[in-house]
């Protein structure tokens, strides 16, 4: 029950993030790109830069903010997945960037979206 809610919440957050990026003029390349070692929530194109986005949704900050949850281990996983993505599509010489989009979605009220550009690197 609870788990289902979380996944749902996550999906809703990712939808919000996609809208947010589109509004910023990004082009969405793909969503939920998966390999065995990990998943990239959103891959988008910002001008000449490929942006790998990690979206974290929280309903309160009682257990820490969403951005905090992207720790070293998670970062490494995302970078690994990104390298695999670049290899598969022969984009190794592509300019790229890692962003974190943090969404605070309280039970009532408007969601708050925070976009951390170039949040980390390999």
């Amino acid at each position: 029950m609870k788990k289902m809610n979380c996944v749902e919440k996550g999906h809703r957050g990712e939808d919000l993030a996609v809208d947010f990026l589109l509004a910023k003029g990004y082009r969405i390349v793909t969503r939920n790109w998966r390999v065995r070692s990990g998943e990239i929530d959103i891959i988008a194109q910002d001008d000449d830069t490929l942006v790998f986005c990690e979206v974290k949704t929280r309903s309160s900050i009682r257990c820490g903010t969403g951005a905090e949850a992207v720790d070293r281990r998670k970062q490494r996983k995302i970078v690994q997945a990104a390298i695999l993505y670049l290899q598969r599509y022969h984009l190794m010489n592509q300019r790229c960037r890692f962003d974190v989009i943090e969404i605070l979605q309280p039970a009532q009220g408007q969601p708050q979206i925070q976009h951390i550009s170039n949040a980390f690197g390999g």
Partner: protein
Amino acid sequence: MFAKTFGAGILGLNGVLFSIEVDISNGIPGMEIVGLPDAAVRESKERVRAAIRNSGYEVPCRRITVNLAPADQKKDGSGLDLPIAIGILAASGQLAVQALDEVVLVGELSLDAKLRGINGVLPMAIICRQTGIKRLVLPVENAAEAQVVDTLKVVAVDSLQAAIKAIASDFPDLTESPRCNVPRLIKQSLQQNDDFCDVQGQLAAKRALEIAAAGGHNVLMTGSPGAGKTMLARRIASILPPMTQDEALEVSKIYSVAGLLGQVAGLVEQRPFRSPHHTVSAAAMAGGGRIPRPGEVTLAHNGVLFLDELTEFPRQVLEVLRQPVEDGQVTVARVNSTYTYPSRFMLILAMNPCPCGYFGDSLRECCCSQAEIKRYLRRISGPLMDRIDLHINVPRLRYEEMATEQQAEPSKTIAARVAAARALQADRFAGMGVFCNAQMNHRQIKDQCQISKDAQELLRQAFEKMKLNARSYDRIIKVAQTIADLVGQNKIAYEHMAEAVQVRLTVADSAHNN
């Protein structure tokens, strides 16, 4: 996009130049430093990032590769922050580079982009001059020591912005700080607080210290507690001759690497006086560590190493002294490389004659047994004793000596005699790389020391009676030569030899022979 800058580091006591290559390319963003960086250099990544951002520039969100060449040499220290930062700015096109080929950059960055001083700038400046580098950009704190090196243009900056400005404007002359006058600095050295006029009596000891200072000989002072051994030793600095420019430069290099150089003066002006506590470890004495640092014997180079309470030092620490005392240098071997540090110093030792301290005292009775005294003296090995030229007894002072109104001879007059003797030696050893009598080797003694017939005969008798060895033979001649120098004579006469033999003979010595 690619850029190349130059930085400098330290290997032993010498500077080395590194070239820092920065390449910025597409791909996964991040910064990678290659070329055997140690922890401090690897961490410079974060300092450089923050410093660049906080000076109003930006770190490109791209793949940054920093290569430190030559790639097979370990790089340590934080002095490479500045060249890495400038390299990144140049490679990303934020800094239009004109002439970074003949410029060496050193300095540690703080997060707010201020430049912090680093150790070892003097050797770096020297290597810059030797390799024909035109300009050295460094933190303001280190400017004075680098200015000692002539013909090198020193650009002192206080922040990353200032460094960028200086480079971008191709170094207007006004950024160069004024050159300091080196010989003037050394001359200032003779201001001392401790003066021999404070020490009443102890004429024999003072005479021995005068001889020691004049020829750079090693001294052992034995005496009961409170007789004035430490007081005498502390005043030795006041009668040593001022350092020559070469000597001062050598010492300054050592202190620069050790991070002990004062911030105001560029050169060490006074002869070093080191008196390590007896809890010192063997590594601290000889120099050591994973990346070797100079030890006490090297910090005392061209000066005095004073070991108070000699018998309290661990045996291991004392035995470490053998090589430096004999060869004037100490070698620290590591897997990667071998470091040789200079260590030509006067060794001054002080100890009590027995555990209770009153053996041979004129008033108090010694309460130690013969066996105890023997065991006590055995803590100091024969080989170390053998390297001591002058053994002095420092007896208890009588009340009349203490309370006298008569002023003892001030350091100034003693220093004048010492300086005269050293001047003679300087003539004698011109161009030989030797600065005083104690540093002569066997061949130089043969060539330089003329001994009169009767003095030679006295030496023969002493040699047989005192069961001397080859080393003590050489050492006695050296002391005799110094005594002759003190009276302005070149040839060693009978009385000079007699005094030299006499100061070698002591209680401790005879106890060892038993």
